[in-house]
């Protein structure tokens, strides 16, 4: 399997799995599971997002300092870290709104897409 085909298979397979799982949760049969897991989801995002965001940020900063500047390969973990922190921020409880905050989610999306772009521009390709 070539690397390009492997990447394509990975993206398509993951996307299909997410779509199927999302549809399953939306069906009446999945309502009980949805209600069972929904209270824990913000906590998972808050804890793991903070930890991973901090880890990615520190990794990126260390790489930038070690290389004497921010390269594309260093910017990827920085973008991923900011994205993870935005995800955690989106799930912080507030007095007015108990749902994920829109602006924080949008920020997470922007930095996740930026990370994908930087990763592609870095020129390093996987060997799947």
């Amino acid at each position: 399997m070539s690397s390009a085909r492997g990447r394509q298979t990975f993206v398509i397979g993951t996307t299909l799995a997410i779509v199927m799982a999302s549809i399953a949760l939306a069906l009446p049969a999945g309502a009980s599971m949805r209600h069972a897991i929904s209270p824990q989801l913000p906590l998972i995002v808050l804890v793991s997002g903070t930890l991973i965001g901090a880890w990615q940020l520190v990794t990126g900063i260390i790489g930038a300092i070690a290389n004497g500047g921010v390269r594309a390969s260093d910017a990827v973990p920085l973008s991923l870290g900011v994205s993870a922190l935005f995800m955690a921020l989106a799930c912080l409880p507030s007095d007015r709104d108990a749902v994920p905050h829109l602006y924080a989610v949008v920020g997470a999306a922007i930095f996740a897409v930026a990370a994908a772009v930087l990763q592609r521009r870095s020129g390093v390709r996987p060997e799947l």
Partner: protein
Amino acid sequence: MKHRIAVAAIAAAALVAVACQDQDGGARRLATEPGSTSPEQGTRYVTTGVAAVVDRVTHRLQAVAPSSPSASASVVAANGSPDAVTISNGAPGIANSGGQRISSFVDASSHRHTVSMLYSSVGGPPAAVQHYVDGVLVSTNAFSWQRTSTGWVRTGSLLRVVRKGTLVGTYTTVTTPAPVGKGGGSKPTLRLQGPVAPTALQRAIGSAAYHLAFVFAPQDATAQSLAWSACSQFWLRYAAAAAVVVGLEVAMADMPVITAFILAQFGSALSLLAAAEDQLLDCVLSHQPSSTDNWSSGMGSGAGSGAGGGSDGTKDCLQGSYAAHCTTAFTL
């Protein structure tokens, strides 16, 4: 391409200018708040209101002056704006058939407000509205509407204020058309702040700005809790969360090595997506208008097997009744 951008900018500027001009007030405005004139040219309305509270000794309604200290706060508050209400065709909250629509929101004091709008079998604006705070009924409001060429005019309303299942006060309004040039005698006249003579172009642009305002900039709580915009925020969150997942997915596909941390971040993004989907589904399900059958079954055993909104069992609900069979579905 540049021409298209220029035309689009000019059109947007024109719409914004008209919308801003509408905010100045006056009878020509097309705001999302209730107005005091009908959409038809030259028609003025006079609304009179009567407030009453239940006497604690005799348990009978007694009319009170709006400023009477014996009147409850809710009744007095309702008396402060005796304007006529006009609703245009296509406005949010208009139904095509009978049923009910439920909206809810949490206020700054963390109290959950639920508004249930009950529609008669012919549709149109809601025939009755029930207001619950933290699952407890606090008021019902029944309306009567008159169809006009461009929408509806509220001809009467009956607000019942309820505390612990007991009626404590009412506020009744009656709206009647007044001939142009006559103020309606001693009755309180409404805001009339300019001639009602928009041109066809002004009306067309104003109508477009009016509907855009409903979609993009709802100006009151009613507008924010109705129509598709009720779940638009949840939908945007869901779309943004999906973008996070896709971004991470593409980044992972290009990474030479997929570490445990990036997998964990991907799992967090999936959790965020699931949380956003959960909120979106809850919002959509709570705003789905009930069908005729659901209406009958949803209004308790008293609904019987009649058609939605018109059966004997639910007719009193459409008239603002706070009886158990009208409210049980929301208070359990």
